[in-house]
Structure formats: C-alpha cells, structure tokens
C-alpha cells in the first residue's frame, strides 16, 4: 500500500496543517504527524531496518508519546516480584517470556520486531506470531533484563505486555500439535488403506489368489490400527465423557461406528474371509478430524485475543505512599494493609475495605448481579469488581492467588465459556437426533436380521455412519466460531456471544459524542482565569482534580499539566455526567459543567461550552477544549444508514457542540445536555416503541446507558475498561468497523440457517436409503464426511468478502491506529 503525501509516513494518519514534523528515513525527508511517530521512524532507521517501510502492507501503529513511553510503566517488570510470574527460567541462564504485542498489522511488523529484538545482545531467539499477536522471546539473563526488551518494542512503536508464563498458551499449543499429528496419521492411513482396498476390489474382478487377498487384508489391518487407536482417540474419549455425564453427545454414534466397523473387519481378517472396511474407517476418521481441526483453528484464533485481554486485567495497582503521592506497583507486590487507590472504571485489585466515603461497584463478574452495588465506608470490596464513579481508596485485606485468580478466571469464563443460546439449542437438538439415530440403527439391524441376516450388519453400519450428526452438531458452532474469529481480526471483540443476534436485529444506533464520535482525547484550548489566578496555577489545580477521572475531558486537562507533582486534595469524588469535586485544604473545589461547578447564585456569562473550575467563592478558571471528529465517523454513520439503521446522538455535552457534530454527520436526531438517567429514559422510550437499540460509547461514562441497550459496543481505551459493561468491544477504536460487523453477523445467521437446513435435508435423503441397505459403508463414510465438511466450509465463507472491503480504506485503517495505541 502506498501512503499518500498528506498522511503520516509512519502511522498513515492524516497530517494536520502546521503541525508536520520532518525526519529523514531511508535517505528521504518524510512527513510525520507527531513526535511519537518520529521517534519510532528514526529508531527503525537507526537500527538499519528501514526496509520495513518497503515490506509492510499496512501503516504502523501510532506510538505513544515518547515521554510517556519512556519507561514509567516498564520499570516494575524489572523487579523479581513481578518478573517471576511472566518470565520462565529455562535453566542454563536462559529466560523465556511470552508477550502480547499490540499494533502488529502485517507480516512486515513481524519482520521488524524479529530484527529489532534480535539485534539486542543476549537475545537467543525471537518468534513473533502475527495472527495471535504474540512474541516468544528467549534470552540470556546475564546480558539482558525484561524491561530492556519491552523498551525496545515500545521504541519501535509497538506496545508489549508480558503474559502469564503458565498460561493457556501451552495447553493450546499442545492441543493444536496433537490435532495436527492425528490428522496426518489418519491421512496417511487412509491413503494406504484405500490402496490395499482398491487392490482387493479390483482383485474381485481379476481373480487375485487367496494368499494375496489374505496379505492385503492384514496390511489393511496394519495401517488402520494406528488410525483407530491413535488418531480416533478423541472421539472415544469424547463419547465416554458424554456418556458419563449422562448425555448423548455427537461423539457417541461416531465412536460406536468406528468401533463396530473396525471390530467387524478385524474379525473377518482373523477368520480369513469376507469383506473388510479398513479403508472406510480410516477415511471416516480422517474427514471427521479435518472438520474438527478447522473448528479448533477458528476457536483458537477467536480466543487468542479474548483471553489475553482477560489476563491483562489488573496487573498493576496504585499504592498510596505514607508520604503522600501514588506509586504504581505490580499487583503481586501489594501487602495486606496497604492503601490502594482505584480510579473510575478500574478493577479492584485485591479484596479490601473501603476507606473513601462511598462508591458504586459492579460485581457482575463475581455475583452475576448486573446492577451496580452501593458501598459505604467500611464495606468490603471484592477483587475483580469494576468501580463506577470514584476514585476510591481501600485498605488491602486479602491478597494472593485466591482472590486475584478468582477474578481473572471469571473474566476468562465470561469471555469464552459463555455459550450463546443459539449454540445451546443446537446442542439439545443434536442430543435428540443422536437418540433417534441409535434407535433407528437398532431397528435396521433387527429388521434386516429377520429378512436377510447376512446384510444386517452392513446396513446397520451404513445407517450409523451416514446419519452421523456431525453436520447438525457443527452447523452452529462452526459458523459462530468463524464469525467470532473474523470479527476479532477486524478489531471487533465479542464479549457476550448472545449479542450477535441483537446486533443483527438492531434498528437504531445511539452514539455518545465525546470519545465516541470524536477523538478520545480532546486537546485543551484557551484557558480563561478569574480573580487574578495565573493560568499555570489554575491548570495545576484543575489537573490534580482531574487526574483520577477517566473521562476524556478530564484526561485532556490532566494531560495539559503533565508534571505529576499534584496539589494535595482530599475527598476527591467523581459525579457522573457532571464533573469532579474535592477539598484543597478547606476550600471546596469543583471542576466540570458550569452549572455544576459554580456556587449557587453565581453565573458566569458564556461558559456553557466550557469546563469550569470553581470554589465556594466563585469561578477560578474556564477551560475550552477542542474536539476532533474521528476521521471515519461520517463514513461509519453513512454505512449504518445504508443498512437501515437510524443514528441518534445522545450526549451530555452542550447544545451548540452537539449540534455542530450532528450537522457534520448529517444526523437529525440528536439530544444534548443529557444526564445518564435521561439517556436511559431515551433508550427505554425507543425500546418501548419497538426499536432494537444498539448503544455505542466509550464504556465508562456511559456504562449505565450501555447496560440499558439491546446490544452495547464500547470503544476500547484501556485494558481495564474493556470488561466493563459492554457486549462488544472495538479494540481497533474504529467506528467504521460497526457496519461491516453487523453485515458479517447477518451473514453468519444466514449461514447457520443454511447449515441447519442442509444437515436436515441430507439426513432425510440419506438415512432411508441406508436403512434399505442401498448404501455400502464406504459410500456412507464419504457422504457423511462431505456433509460435515460442507458445513464447515460453508462457515468458513463468513467474512471472506468483507475482509477485502476493509483493506481498501486506508483512511479507516489509519484512524484505527490513532486510538488503538491508547488501549494497550
């Protein structure tokens, strides 16, 4: 892909006039959008890896501000208390770590990372996997420590986070290796068995002598035995498991068929006569394993991202120092009795007692109760619950693997183990179907035994094999796993699979404005002060007050005063939809909407669109913020409109600003100055009129709104928030991903219906023929394998076409870069 001259050379974002930075890369002067991109480009050039720009097919990820990336977050990883959990000792002075790297967009990123890391002295091997966004690094601990590796990655413009060393990855790697080996054994076995079987079939015409036939039968037995006892073991294990659980899973008839066909052929071989079916049984196993393998691949891809997010959740905590101030520490460095601060939308890192006046927490992960629970000073907070409003402080009471792991496990369960209703219904249907097949087989066996005992076995086996419920059982999960994987690739992470149906059906899309339609971080514009306060002083106080909040406006103010020596504040509280309050000495400060911040009876003219800092005596300063529309917002709204989804803006912001944004997006239905409760009422009203509502927000400030919609989408801005209260998370931060995702989900549901119909018709046609003895077992094996393969291949169609449309919008891709960087 060529990147146009008016966009950043590194990340591809459109350049802002007057803010262009120039740097020499690969012998030419290039335009760059920010210092972060310049640092990354120069660093890549300095390493002699400028070929990256030639090899890549997607623009790079916009790196964080070099000042922010300078290692503030990396230092804790050097301490053995933290490193112990993410670094594995391979012995011999070699260490291994598994990193999740965000920002890998194409194979050139893999190339760049492998080269950049490989150039560090002491690095033994680097393996970067673009699909799962992971890097496995082995190094000698005498030459190198983990923070240096992380720093190298961040300087090249990527974000790296170490993953738990004893994680699921090993389980998954083992599973996929074993499946590949089984598949190969079955494939080779099938080819050989078919060769011998062909000789036997042809020999029937050409009159092969008896000893040769005997030899061929024994050879068939020789190659089919590993297929049955090694390759087909998962089917036997699955059948046993489901029988023990008292269910009739889809493995039961499969295992019965394999065992019956193999046993009968073995008997004929030992007896030295009759028909053997070693080829059928091998082929049967091979095709089944192929279907399973494809399904497993899709599942792994979908899980790669979800479990990484889940495992990232509360890695660090903010510990309050006795001397004042806050220190960021690894969660394993906490001790019982420590005071910990949790910001709004953050995850409580350990079980503890609330020290702040009051707060609300969402304990849905642990209790299943989705309504936030109010807590007073002295109440207990549970690790893993999500804070709404805040910031709060708590005293750590219980620590250790018990609590933290419980929270993390719950997150993983929520992301993965929750099976969609659709799938559960499919499973019940499968179970009923299996019962019918087994009884039909018995009837066939008895019927033929009465009519013609010599054909009874062949016909019964044919019924069992031909009607295998795999097509039924795979119809739903194959389509859903494929859809989840295809969505994850596009930066759409489905947290609750039931949301798929709701997304496909939605008729109205309600957007929050700040941080959703506009860029997540507005920039601070003019500062107006009152009563002789200097601008710096006003900003210092406002930034200190805003620091704990995650509202984008608060973050913009906090970012405008980056020096972290904040003024000492007490009782800092966040007021949902209004602003922040706190005590400075005995002055009661407020920062937020002007009607909230000003003391009663005082009005400041023309402050409607400003953020006001005030104390009880009157306003101190007014801050005006500049917002930029996300580059793909308009295209995204238009695409949704083309699909027949009405777009609505529901914002807590001032009239004129909302009207301005709405006009730019050609949205006529917009609402300004809404409090969260008003937004909820708006949603309830829409739903009462029969609309199916999709809510899009940033996941924190509008958590209640997201919870009130049929399906909620949150723009990911940080690993903690992604778990908050949404069904779907846009990890790419791209609004443009919504409309294609909806189209893809609709396609998925269509494929599910197609698959189910196909499985039904196939069985209705094939089973009677088999029961009448018209289908030889080998043909039955082909028919059944092809039917399930057809279902899986049909599911793999999902997302094929859509992938082409996304790559043809470089602007949309670059937009994702701008926000995605902030997430991890």
């Amino acid at each position, binding site marked *: 892909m060529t990147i146009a001259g008016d966009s950043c050379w590194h990340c591809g974002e459109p350049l802002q006039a007057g803010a262009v930075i120039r740097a020499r890369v690969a012998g030419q002067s290039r335009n760059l959008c920010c210092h972060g991109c310049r640092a990354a480009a120069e660093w890549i050039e300095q390493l002699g890896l400028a070929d990256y720009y030639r090899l890549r097919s997607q623009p790079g990820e916009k790196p964080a501000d070099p000042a922010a990336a300078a290692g503030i977050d990396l230092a804790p990883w050097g301490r053995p208390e933290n490193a112990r959990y993410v670094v594995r000792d391979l012995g011999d002075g070699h260490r291994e770590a598994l990193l999740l790297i965000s920002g890998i967009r194409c194979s050139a990123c893999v190339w760049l990372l492998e080269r950049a890391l*490989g150039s560090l002295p002491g690095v033994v091997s680097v393996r970067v996997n673009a699909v799962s966004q992971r890097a496995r690094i082995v190094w000698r601990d005498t030459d190198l420590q983990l923070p240096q590796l992380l720093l190298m990655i961040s300087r090249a413009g990527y974000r790296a986070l170490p993953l738990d060393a004893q994680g699921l990855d090993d389980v998954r790697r083992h599973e996929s*290796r074993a499946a590949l080996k089984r598949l190969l054994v079955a494939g*080779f076995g099938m080819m*050989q068995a078919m060769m011998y079987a062909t000789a036997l079939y042809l020999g029937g015409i050409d009159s092969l002598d008896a000893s040769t036939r005997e030899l061929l039968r024994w050879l068939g037995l020789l190659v089919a035995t590993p297929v049955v006892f090694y390759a087909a073991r998962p089917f036997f294990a699955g059948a046993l498991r489901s029988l023990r659980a008292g269910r009739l899973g889809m493995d039961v008839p499969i295992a019965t068929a394999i065992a019956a066909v193999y046993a009968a052929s073995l008997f004929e071989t030992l007896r030295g006569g009759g028909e053997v079916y070693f080829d059928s049984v091998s082929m049967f196993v091979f095709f089944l394993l192929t279907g399973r393998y494809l399904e497993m691949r899709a599942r792994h891809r979908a899980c790669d991202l979800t479990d990484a997010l889940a495992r990232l959740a509360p890695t660090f905590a903010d510990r309050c120092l006795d001397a004042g101030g806050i220190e960021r520490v690894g969660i394993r460095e906490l001790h019982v009795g420590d005071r910990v601060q949790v910001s709004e939308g953050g995850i409580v890192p350990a079980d503890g007692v609330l020290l702040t006046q009051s707060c609300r927490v969402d304990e849905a992960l642990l209790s299943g109760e989705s309504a936030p629970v109010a807590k007073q000073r002295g109440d207990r907070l549970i690790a893993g619950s999500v804070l709404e409003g805040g910031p709060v402080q708590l005293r750590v009471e219980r620590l250790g693997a018990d609590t933290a792991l419980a929270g993390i496990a719950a997150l993983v369960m929520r992301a993965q183990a929750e099976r969609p209703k659709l799938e559960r219904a499919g499973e019940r249907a499968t179970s009923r179907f299996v019962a019918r097949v087994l009884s039909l087989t018995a009837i066939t066996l008895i019927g033929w035994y009465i009519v013609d005992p010599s054909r009874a076995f062949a016909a019964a086996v044919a019924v069992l094999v031909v009607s295998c419920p795999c097509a039924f059982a795979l119809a739903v999960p194959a389509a859903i796993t494929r859809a989840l994987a295809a969505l994850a690739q596009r930066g759409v992470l489905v947290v609750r699979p039931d949301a798929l149906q709701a997304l496909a059906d939605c008729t109205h899309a309600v957007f929050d404005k700040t941080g959703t339609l506009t860029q997540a971080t507005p920039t601070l514009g003019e500062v107006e002060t009152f009563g002789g306060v200097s601008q710096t002083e006003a900003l210092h106080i406002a930034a200190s007050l805003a620091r704990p909040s995650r509202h984008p406006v608060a973050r913009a103010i906090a970012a405008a005063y980056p020096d972290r020596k904040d003024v000492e504040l007490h009782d800092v509280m966040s007021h949902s939809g209004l602003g922040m309050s706190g005590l400075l000495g005995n002055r009661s400060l407020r920062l937020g909407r002007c009607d909230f911040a000003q003391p009663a009876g005082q009005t400041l003219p023309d402050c409607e669109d400003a953020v006001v800092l005030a104390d009880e005596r009157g306003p101190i300063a007014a801050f005006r913020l500049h917002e930029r529309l996300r580059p793909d917002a308009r295209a995204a709204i238009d695409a949704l409109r083309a699909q027949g989804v009405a777009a609505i803006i529901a914002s807590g912001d001032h009239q004129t600003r909302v009207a301005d944004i709405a006009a730019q997006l050609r949205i006529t239905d917009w609402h300004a100055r809404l409090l969260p409760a008003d937004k909820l009422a708006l949603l309830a009203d829409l739903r009462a009129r029969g609309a199916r509502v999709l809510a899009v927000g940033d996941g924190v400030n509008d958590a209640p709104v997201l919870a009130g919609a049929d399906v909620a989408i949150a723009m990911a801005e940080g690993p903690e928030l992604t778990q908050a209260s949404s069904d779907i998370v846009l990890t790419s931060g791209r609004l443009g991903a919504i409309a294609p995702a909806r189209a893809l989900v609709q396609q998925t549901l269509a494929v599910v219906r197609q698959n189910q119909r196909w499985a039904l018709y196939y069985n209705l046609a094939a089973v009677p023929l088999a029961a009448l003895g018209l289908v030889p077992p080998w043909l039955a094996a082909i028919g059944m394998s092809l039917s399930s393969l057809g279902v899986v291949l049909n599911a793999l169609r999902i997302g094929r076409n859509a992938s082409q449309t996304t790559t043809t919008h470089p602007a949309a891709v670059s937009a994702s870069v701008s926000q995605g960087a902030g997430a991890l």
Partner: protein
Amino acid sequence: MNTLVFMIPLSLLFLGGAVAVFFWAVDHDQFEDMESPGLLPLDDAPDREPRRE
C-alpha cells in the same frame, strides 16, 4: 508376487519415515506461523548478526 513382497515393506518404511519427519516438524514449531517466513527472502541484506547460537 515377488515384487509385492519387496515393494510393500519398502512403501511402509517410507511411510514411517514421512510420519517421523512430520512429527519432528510439528514439534519444532514449523507450523506455528505460516505467514512471516514468506517475507524473509524479500530482505536484501544478509543477517547482520547471527541471531541464534
């Protein structure tokens, strides 16, 4: 018939060899990443420093 007696064990021997080679490949991460190795030949410059010992 004599050829069969010779050829069949030979084919089984080959088969065993192929399975062994494939198992080795699976165990040595040869199927983990199917995309990035395709880019390696596009890099003109030879490895500046050997990465592996």
